């Protein structure tokens, strides 16, 4: 086993005071032999292909949210999901279920290519064996004109696992990328996404839900880069922090010069249920264009006294009330996952965790 290397991920697009420790995050990893974690795939529809390729020509041109150091996890073989060139067909879907090996560095790479006028939905379920290990998953998306790409991610890694989930995308004219993610597991989670809205009227929507428990670390970096005119982005992040969980959310709306008519919205709400939980948030709006609308809002806090009183008056104790509200928050994301059996898996996970 080689000595540990330190990689830097989740760069804030514009630096701020160093004492905040939010400009980036450092992870120590032992970069040794990487393996692809096994997965099962289920494909619905005849209009999408799945192949493992050694090389993808557009791969390096797509930037990602976690940054260039993710190249440490490069491995042979990229799973290439490509829609057939038949516009206006019904939405194609693929489900990928990964199970990471313990005591290993599991790496997987996915390239999603949605051809003009096509639609594809990809659901990824990530779990692992018991024990320690790393799961690194990098997804890059090329959404051509008038295409729609939906990515649903359910992360249920073991408590001793380190998860690194990286995403990058380019949207052409009228293309849409939607990312729905629910983060439930992993002892340390690093997640980043960066989508370049290059084409006019392109769009990036994100909905993230997370539950931080015990001593979990959640470190996120989401960037919507508006390049084309009348582009739109919406980021909604909703989470619960319990016990001694620590979370850092970086969310950036970046309006580049020339993106007249663009709109970006970012909203975060955090329910703090642990006295020792640490919540850090840094929502950025960067603007080099006059004709735009950018908004962000964050609310961070506890269950209100009124809510607890109401619950108490119905015979529901504080801890039960907290579990109910936490579950409800995460359920609003879980119901967005299109596969009912996967929704059931999530509910099973909630039950196991006492929610």
């Amino acid at each position: 086993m080689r000595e540990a290397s330190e990689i830097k991920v989740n760069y804030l697009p514009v630096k701020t005071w160093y004492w905040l420790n939010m400009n980036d995050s450092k992870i120590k990893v032992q970069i040794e032999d990487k393996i692809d974690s096994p997965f099962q795939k289920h494909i619905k529809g005849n209009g999408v292909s799945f192949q493992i390729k050694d090389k993808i020509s557009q791969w390096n041109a797509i930037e990602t949210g976690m940054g260039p150091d993710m190249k440490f996890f490069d491995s042979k073989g990229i799973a290439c999901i490509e829609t057939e060139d038949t516009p206006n067909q019904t939405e194609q879907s693929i489900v990928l279920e990964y199970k990471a090996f313990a005591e290993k560095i599991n790496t997987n790479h996915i390239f999603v290519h949605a051809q003009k006028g096509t639609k594809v939905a990809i659901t990824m379920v990530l779990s692992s064996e018991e024990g320690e290990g790393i799961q690194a998953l990098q997804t890059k998306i090329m959404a051509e004109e008038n295409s729609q790409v939906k990515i649903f991610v359910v992360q249920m890694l073991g408590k001793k696992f380190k998860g690194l989930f990286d995403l990058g995308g380019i949207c052409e004219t009228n293309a849409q990328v939607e990312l729905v993610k629910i983060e439930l597991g992993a002892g340390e989670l690093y997640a980043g996404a960066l989508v370049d809205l290059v084409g006019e009227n392109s769009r990036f929507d994100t909905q993230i839900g997370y539950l931080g428990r015990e001593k979990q670390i959640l470190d996120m970096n989401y960037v919507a880069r508006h390049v084309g005119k009348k582009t739109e982005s919406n980021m909604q992040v909703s989470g619960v922090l319990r016990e001694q969980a620590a979370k850092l959310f970086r969310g950036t709306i970046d309006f580049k010069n020339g993106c007249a008519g663009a709109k970006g919205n970012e909203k975060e709400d955090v329910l703090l249920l642990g006295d020792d939980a640490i919540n850090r948030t840094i929502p950025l709006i960067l603007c080099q264009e006059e004709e735009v609308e950018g908004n962000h809002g964050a609310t961070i806090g506890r269950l209100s006294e009124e809510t607890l009183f109401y619950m108490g008056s119905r015979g529901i104790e504080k801890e039960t009330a907290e579990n109910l509200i936490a579950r409800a928050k995460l359920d609003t994301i879980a119901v967005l996952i299109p596969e009912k059996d996967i929704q059931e898996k999530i509910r099973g996970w909630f039950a196991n965790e006492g929610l």
Partner: protein
Amino acid sequence: MDINQKDKTYVEDIDRTIYDFKNEEKDSYHIKEGLTEEIVEKIAKEKNDPEWMRQFRLNALKIYHEKRVPDWGPSIEGLNIDQIVTYVRPNTKMSADWKDVPADIKETFEKLGIPQAERKSLAGVGAQYDSELVYHNVKEEVAAQGVIYSDLESAMHGEYAGMIQEHFMKLVPPGDHKFAALHGAVWSGGSFVYVPKGVEVSIPLQSYFRLNAKGAGQFEHTLIIVDEGASLHFIEGCSAPKYNVANLHAGCVELYVGKNAKLRYSTIENWSKNMYNLNTKRAQVEEGGVIEWVSGSFGSHVSYLYPMSILHGEGARMEFTGITFAGKGQNLDTGAKVVHAAPNTSSYINTKSISKDGGGSTFRSSVTIARNAKHSKAAVSCQSLMLDPISRSDTIPAMDIRNSDSDVGHEAKIGRISDKAVFYLMSRGISEEDAKAMIVSGFADNVSKELPLEYAIEMNNLIRLEMKGSIG
């Protein structure tokens, strides 16, 4: 309506002509440019520093050389400390009567409206010209209440020497950052204010800083202690003529707000566009105390300015109201910081910014709530108005919350004024032009309404809003 074809709102640039006059440099002492131990020793000697201050300066100089230049904000490449003259003494002593101030210096302050303001509406004035105070006076009735408003250097040798040594650069230690260390090494001028227990100073005190010398720096230090139950409004103003070489302002303000005391600290910053304004302001607020910051940033080529409040005692409160106007050639990085270090504390940050003609404005903030600061509340609101596509406006707010019993809210908005707002007013019978004027005036109103009338007028003189065509 095609957004590309609309006429845009035009906001006239700030009229600098009233500030952009230069006096001949008739200083009695002009130290060599640069920053060496020899220069710091000379300053200490010129000022007849007590030994502890001389050592303090030398230690700060050491720290200055160890610290790196910040790389997270606007570039200060154009600032070469080796070319800055850190001490320029004007050819006069400090006076308590405008009659005794040399004519050209007095005329400077007359043009800026300081003596008139003093007569009409101030309890006391300190006027600094380059590195020294040239005028300092406090009204008799205020002095009779036991209020001390003195130049800092005299106070260091008098009855309050011990108090000053106890407080000087303890809130902003030289190790805080490179320009705090620079300040510690070469500071000169500035004021000391002490308001005794229970005393309410009903009309404001003011300091005005004028930097006349080309290529010079101003490093004034303001130390204010408002004792238990007392209250004070302190106003700070500054300006300089424009030169084609860099000037530097690295001042420091330390404010101590006692138990149940209140301090409002208002600043209209209007340095010239060759100025590097690297200023540090910090307040510590005890139980039940209140600090209110009112800040208008209109000048400087580059600004780094983030007044910080430490809510040290239970129930302490902070309110920050600010406006930043970044025009051509300006990169203004401003904001606020607050640390909730005790239970039941609250803070509210409310800022506006306007960017035009290629100017860059950054709002940078941090809200920290410590583990023991239970039941605290914090809210941050930031609105930015971009008036053309060649300017820049960034919002970088950070929150670090370490207990589950506090409530924090944040909102930020960037863009142009909504056409719907204009339409709404027009549907109520208001003409389009009046509707536009109303909306844009309202945008800049948050700071001016918090200032005494004379300063609100000065601020409104700085921003003349000209509406043309549809809302941009």
